[in-house]
């Protein structure tokens, strides 16, 4: 089966896709986008989180055919320029690095996408910086077995605060 969809703004086509493959598999094994991780492959850990038509989903539980004609954005699409040499980390990625929210890193791509979504839905819609309860609930589907989550919460807050400051006219933080 042939599956065509948009990934990070580019039209892509994968041939000889087997209907039993997940979107995660197609991204990683056929399209050379290994950023999204395959940990549980059962919807439990969130490490495979990607945007599908603007909402975040577990790509391990999306059958390849379901992606046909739709728009996918992966962790690779968060950085600000498509040009590798000039690529700048997104504010969320920078905050994760600075706050020390990354240990083994396996959960990180999923957390980055889900955090990007949280900030877009709060600060990005003119709202305030999400409080800790809101952050924890939004990230409930992303498991991390290394950090104990505290630094992750710090990173999310930092990214949200910076995005809000930028929005409110303070310029890049």
């Amino acid at each position: 089966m042939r599956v065509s969809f948009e990934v990070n703004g580019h039209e892509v086509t994968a041939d000889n896709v087997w209907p039993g493959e997940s979107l995660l598999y197609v991204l990683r094994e056929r399209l050379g986008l290994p950023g999204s991780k395959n940990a549980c492959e059962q919807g439990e850990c969130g490490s495979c989180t990607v945007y599908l038509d603007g909402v975040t989903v577990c790509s391990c539980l999306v059958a390849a055919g379901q992606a046909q004609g739709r728009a996918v954005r992966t962790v690779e699409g968060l950085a600000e320029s498509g040009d590798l040499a000039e690529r700048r980390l997104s504010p969320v990625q920078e905050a994760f690095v600075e706050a020390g929210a990354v240990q083994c890193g396996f959960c990180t791509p999923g957390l980055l996408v889900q955090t990007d979504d949280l900030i877009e839905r709060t600060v990005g819609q003119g709202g305030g910086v999400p409080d800790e309860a809101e952050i924890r609930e939004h990230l409930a589907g992303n498991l991390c077995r290394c950090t104990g989550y505290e630094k992750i919460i710090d990173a999310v807050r930092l990214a949200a605060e910076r995005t809000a400051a930028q929005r409110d006219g303070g310029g890049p933080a």
Partner: protein
Amino acid sequence: MNPFDYRRAEDAAGAVATVAADPRAMFLGGGTNLVDHLKLGIVDPDLLVDVTRLLPDGVEPLPDGGVRIGAGMRNSDLAADPLIRRRYPVLSQALLSGASGQLRNAATTGGNLLQRTRCVYFQDVTMACNKRRPGSGCSAFGGYTRYHAILGASEHCIATHPSDMAVALSALDATVVVQGTDGERRVAMTELHRLPGDAPERDTVLRHGDLITAVELPDLPFAARSRYRKVRDRASYAFALVSVAAAVDLSDGVIREARIALGGVAHKPWRATRAEAELRGARPTEETLRAAAEAELAEARPVEGNEFKPTLARNTLVATLRDLVEEERTR
């Protein structure tokens, strides 16, 4: 996983005809349960018919004052819908208490209703399970039964239905709209799922090829103050040990009507008709609420490993009713 085909259906009648004609064909909604089951080897279809594009995916008001929810509507959209939040908060709360944001973004109303049990023995194809392989036995007895039934179970199966949304819909007296090969019919939400009896392989009364197209909620003014309370092993992202969906119509200090359903306790969302009968016409004292909960759980039969559940269910029911009564009083 054995090979199968994937097809995106264009119209409901065509999808129904295709699946009805092929015993190994299945509908595909968001895929959050079915794709998992393909990987685990629990199902072995030869064709998946994706119905998400053809099903309605919004909430519309009905002329009789009720609302119609499209079966293709995503759980997150339904939970966030302003009409649902205002008129049926119990439904919104139930949805938000289930799964994770990512899963709710993909899961559909139809798929949520027909998700299958999370019994670990059902999910493990190396174990005996009457639901997965009729006649093979039930491994849950004497095993891990924390999430298993205490009401309406049988010697053949003690699995529970895991959906939070379905518990709220049962309390709200929803109607499920189904399209089959001989046209459309309507099934009461409380009749959709079955008790296991000696045929636990059948979760519902639907026939192969029946497509859920919508769910309708009746006009129920007092549901504007309804609640969902879910008890689980951690604060978020876990299935219910016990849950309660409830709405109470209180006026002049007397309960006129109550709508109550329990989750995590049976093979289907458990409509608490005995508790409702106890409450109707009564004053909402602590004793009445407790008596209602006692009446509902009088026939609870826990198994080894879930002895805690009748007490947990009773206390959760009383606490939910108490909160509702308190809210009504201070309104």
